[in-house]
């Protein structure tokens, strides 16, 4: 998984950090996973974070906040490109917290800090927009902080009725400006989101997506449950990327337990992950065709999606690949003959995806609605730390399969598509190219599938571990801390939809109302994945 060159680059970064800021301590450098933990005082966080992102070309992955009794433990995750490993900034603060916000410098941390403030009550100094984020102010009184250790689930009491005085923040000041509300129940079959579009009539000046209508409190429910039960939660947080999230969770537990998987398990996991990616991407293609009202194309894509769901069910027993992953491997094997048949079926599907895409590219009315619409610049994508196909369509070449290889991906050469224009068409090109690449990866995996067991025993020992995957929507990180008796003390999921929803408004603003659903469809975002 790791080459000697990597060790040097990561070590170089650690040494440079310590040289520049003597208060920084290097806690550990994990040689296998290439993760360096740097402890620093909270006051240094903004400078260090900015330096890592701007000078050392790391990307901000997420913030993990843990409530240890007398202090807050903060862990800022940064990951680099291939060979640069990961740098985790570890800081501790007493209670009440005195932690500076890094968001003005590393804007990708914006929503992480807001979420921590809402759920923990941890205030980041210098962040101007804390509050009314995860816990909606008209429903929850201010003092509710569910993720704190001393707050039990049964103590959470919402208001008996929504507060009628709640108003969204209004930004646009123009004669005749008004808010166009979309949601939380809107359109035919959609997840609950409340979009507030500020406009003066034709084009949308500001988009404010108000999320967390599907907030189920997964991170809170997980506390005190066994690892197997939290695995069920990981699968059901966002079922369209269920396998990817359960994979990340299992990898976290495996990292924690120090378990190495047999080869067949790793390759099989990669095959199934690519199958899920393929089905997700075809689903995005279908959503875009429906948004542009191309009925026949949408039907063709829907046929493909249903066939992939059925294929998933034939291979694993469940259409969304539930119940396949477990810490230590897979819960059941898949017969080689079935896999070979699936690979042959996928060839036909690959051809049909190609034909569908070719047809779409030659339909001028379709191109009119996606070309030059919903433009996201590379600078914006980098600054907001966007991930996945959305970022790759804006020229940000980051993919965890390549940058931080995991599972069976060290055996494959993954070609990551990259586009520069950042408009809807570029994103579509990336979605389709990745879908076709997924088919190729599955075929290669099936050819190279070794025999052997598909799982080893994995007993979780107390400790903490990080698992990461390139989910269909982008980079996902799962952080698990296990206590005595195999009970989970802290479970943090950082999902690609959470990262990308943050930057969605950049693409949707300045375009007309009619373009809004199409831009939303080209982003391929998942609401339950963001809301957890």
């Amino acid at each position, binding site marked *: 998984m790791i080459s000697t060159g990597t060790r040097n680059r990561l070590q170089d970064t650690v040494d440079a950090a310590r040289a520049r800021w003597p208060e920084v301590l290097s806690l550990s450098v994990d040689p296998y996973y290439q993760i360096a933990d740097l402890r620093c005082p909270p006051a240094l966080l903004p400078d260090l974070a900015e330096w890592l992102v701007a000078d050392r070309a790391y990307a901000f992955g997420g913030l993990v906040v843990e409530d240890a009794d007398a202090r807050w433990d903060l862990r800022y995750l940064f990951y680099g490109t291939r060979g640069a490993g990961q740098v985790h900034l570890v800081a501790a603060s007493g209670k009440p917290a005195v932690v500076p916000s890094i968001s003005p410098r590393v804007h990708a941390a914006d929503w992480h800090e807001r979420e921590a403030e809402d759920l923990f009550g941890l205030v980041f100094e210098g962040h101007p927009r804390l509050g009314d984020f995860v816990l909606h102010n008209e429903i929850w009184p201010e003092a509710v902080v569910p993720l704190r250790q001393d707050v039990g689930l049964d103590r959470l009491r919402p208001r008996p009725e929504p507060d009628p005085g709640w108003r969204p923040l209004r930004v646009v000041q123009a004669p005749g400006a008004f808010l166009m509300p979309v949601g939380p129940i809107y359109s035919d079959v959609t997840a609950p989101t409340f979009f507030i579009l500020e406009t003066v*009539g034709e084009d949308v000046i500001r988009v404010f997506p108000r999320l967390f209508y599907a907030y189920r409190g997964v991170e809170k429910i997980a506390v005190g449950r066994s690892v197997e039960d939290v695995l069920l939660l990981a699968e059901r947080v966002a079922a369209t990327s269920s396998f990817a999230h359960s994979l990340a969770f299992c990898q976290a537990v495996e990292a924690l337990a120090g378990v190495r998987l047999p080869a067949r398990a790793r390759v099989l996991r990669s095959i199934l992950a690519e199958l899920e990616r393929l089905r997700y991407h075809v689903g995005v293609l279908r959503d875009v065709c429906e948004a542009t009202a191309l009925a026949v194309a949408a039907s063709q894509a829907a046929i493909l999606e249903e066939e992939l769901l059925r294929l998933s069910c034939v291979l694993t027993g469940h259409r969304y690949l539930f119940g396949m992953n477990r810490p230590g491997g897979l819960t059941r094997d898949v017969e080689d003959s079935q896999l070979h048949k699936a690979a042959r079926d996928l060839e036909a599907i690959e051809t049909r995806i190609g034909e569908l895409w070719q047809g779409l590219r030659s339909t001028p009315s379709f191109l009119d609605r996606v070309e030059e619409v919903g433009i996201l610049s590379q600078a914006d994508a980098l600054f907001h730390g966007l991930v996945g196909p959305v970022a790759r369509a804006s020229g940000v070449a980051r993919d965890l399969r390549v940058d931080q290889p995991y599972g069976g991906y060290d055996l494959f050469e993954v070609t990551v598509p990259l586009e520069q224009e950042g408009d809807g068409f570029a994103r579509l090109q990336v979605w389709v190219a990745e879908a076709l690449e997924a088919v190729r990866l599955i075929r290669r995996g099936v050819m190279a599938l070794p025999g052997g067991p598909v799982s080893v025993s994995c007993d979780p020992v107390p400790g903490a571990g990080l698992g990461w995957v390139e989910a269909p929507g982008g980079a996902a990180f799962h952080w698990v801390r296990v206590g005595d008796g195999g009970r989970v003390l802290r479970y943090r999921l950082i999902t690609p939809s959470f990262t990308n929803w943050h930057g969605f408004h950049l693409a949707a603003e300045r375009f007309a109302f009619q373009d809004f659903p199409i831009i939303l469809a080209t982003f391929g975002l998942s609401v339950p994945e963001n809301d957890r």
Partner: protein
Amino acid sequence: MTPVALLGLLLALCGAGALLAVVLPDRRLPEGVAGVGALASLSLVWLGSAGLASPHTPGLRLWTVPELGTLTLVVDPLSSLFVLLCGLVYLPVSLYSLGYLRHYVGRAGLRRFGVLYHGLCGSVALVLLAGDVLTFLLAWEAMAVLSYLLVVFDDDRDSSIRAGWMMLAVGEAGTLAGALAFFLLAAAARSGEFAAMRHAVATLPEGLRWGVFLLAFFGFGVKAGLVPMSSWLPRAHPAAPGNVSALLSGVIVNLGIYGIVRVVLDIAPPQTLGPGVVALLVGSLSALIGILYATTQTDLKVVLAHSSVEHMGIVTAAIGAGLVFRASGHPVLAAMADLAALYHLGNHALFKALLFLGAGAVDRGAGLRDMDRLGGLVKRMPGTALAVLGGTLSIAALPPLNGFVTEWLVLQTLLRSVVLRETVVKIVFALCGAALALTAALAVTAFVRAYAMSFLGIPRSKEAAQAREVHPTMVGAMVGLSLACLGAGVLPTFIIATLDRVVAPLVHAHVLDALVPPFFAPAAAVPPLPQAFLKEFYALGAQVGRGIVPGRGLVVLHRGGPQNPVVFAMSTSYMVVVLLLFVGVTGAVVRVLARRKVVRAPCWAGGLWRLPPDMTYTATGFSTPVRVVFRAVFHPSAPEEVVDTVGGYWRRAVKRIPHETYVVDRLVSRPLTRGARRVADALATLHHGYINAYVAYVLATLLILLAVGRMP
């Protein structure tokens, strides 16, 4: 009473009103002004009716001014019509003033208002009844000054004072042009009297006739608010207090049309097609520009002011069509066009006065006129809302109200251009007809928006949420006007019969037979209609009402040749009966058969617990598509945008400041002003301060005058 006696009564009442305004105690002033005003308007109505009914045209010679001529007043059908219209508007405005002026009790200006009000009434009557140039101009100037004083009566803001001043200044320029037209005619006739001018017009050369037309049309067009000259109207009407705005749009703009009609239709009708085409084009352009701005402005009164421009444009277009038909030798069609124009003018006076009174009521009840901040007034001000609804439906030209009748008549008349010979003129008619049709469609948009944003929905501001219904006399006056609108729409055949008497002397042709077939008379008296069609119409019920309803019939029907017996037909009278029957029967059936109660539930807002008012469409948002499509007219410069952020990335405010100039200002007024300034600046080089040069100027002027004076 004879018209002359009525005129005396009117003038006496006006004088009495002015006197009372000075003498009465403060608290009684509103009643005094309103009461005498109502009496004066009743006498106006009586005078107008008497003038219309009387078969001859009585005149009155007042005193003779040496060297200039005799002041004469003539009561002919055209004047009587305008006097009647004036009275029909003055009456509800006076009643409205009873409640409206209470607000001003105790203020010094109220007495002045009373004097000006009655003075205006008198001067308007004198303008309309003037029989010679001198009377006309004297009364006209009095009217201009009095209306200016009324406009700037209340408001101290800079923009309002400038608006009034602009009205006066531009108005004077128009008056100058109109006066020049009159002087040309007087020079040809060697007399200032209109009767003499009428006879002398045949001797005028073609160029001079064109000159008279252009001067009169564009000069009086200023007062009417036609497009190249309309800069003052959208500024002055909103600046005036509520009842004065109604007078401006209901009475004063009519005077502009009166001037045009008097000179161009009565005294010096053109004999070529050119002037008619010019009038048609100017009218259509005014209509389109007026309605475009009415659709996109957010101040209620500004919307109504632009709408006045639109309707004056329609009237002018109809007059233009009439001129073309007349010059082409189709006097009946010319009469039809002129009748449509005058009918529309009357209807406009009624519904525009109603709408302006409504706007004034909204201003009084809610304290603001900005549609982006109004809303929900139908619950707080139900009487006003109902009355204004009547006006809105009329101005949007919905049957069976009066706006529909005249818009329909105007468009049908334009369609009659098929009988013309010149293709170019026919194309012009087609284009203008299309423009007017577009105008009608935009009018619906504009007034749906105006009514919905102000009265319907939820209140968008605290003031709107706390609006109060206004004084009952104000509501009563508005309701009366909306009933008049309904009446004018439902009884078109009677009004056409009356207007025929006005139009016939102008074009020397009767149009009554061409428009209202006598269905109530014995069948034998209708020979031109073939029997088959007659039977069909009787089967449709065209004879219902015979013996009950006086007059010729209730169907407006134009007959073509034998191949085309019915060119167009319409009956709002029957329409109203059918509508009432339909509504009544359906309502009764629903009442009887309905098994479930109606449930009132909150509006579905996507699951929101409550829909706050800032999440509803504003008037600006509603009109943005029109603004975008007609970009070429509005020519908005890119709005200035200022983004205010915290920490560089979190936006606190995005300010958008739009910059837009009225198209007439942009294309006409500003260039003219700039040109005038440049000329003035060039001439200013003469003001250099050297006294020697000034002495030289005086000498030069003296020499020039001596040289000129010596010329024979």
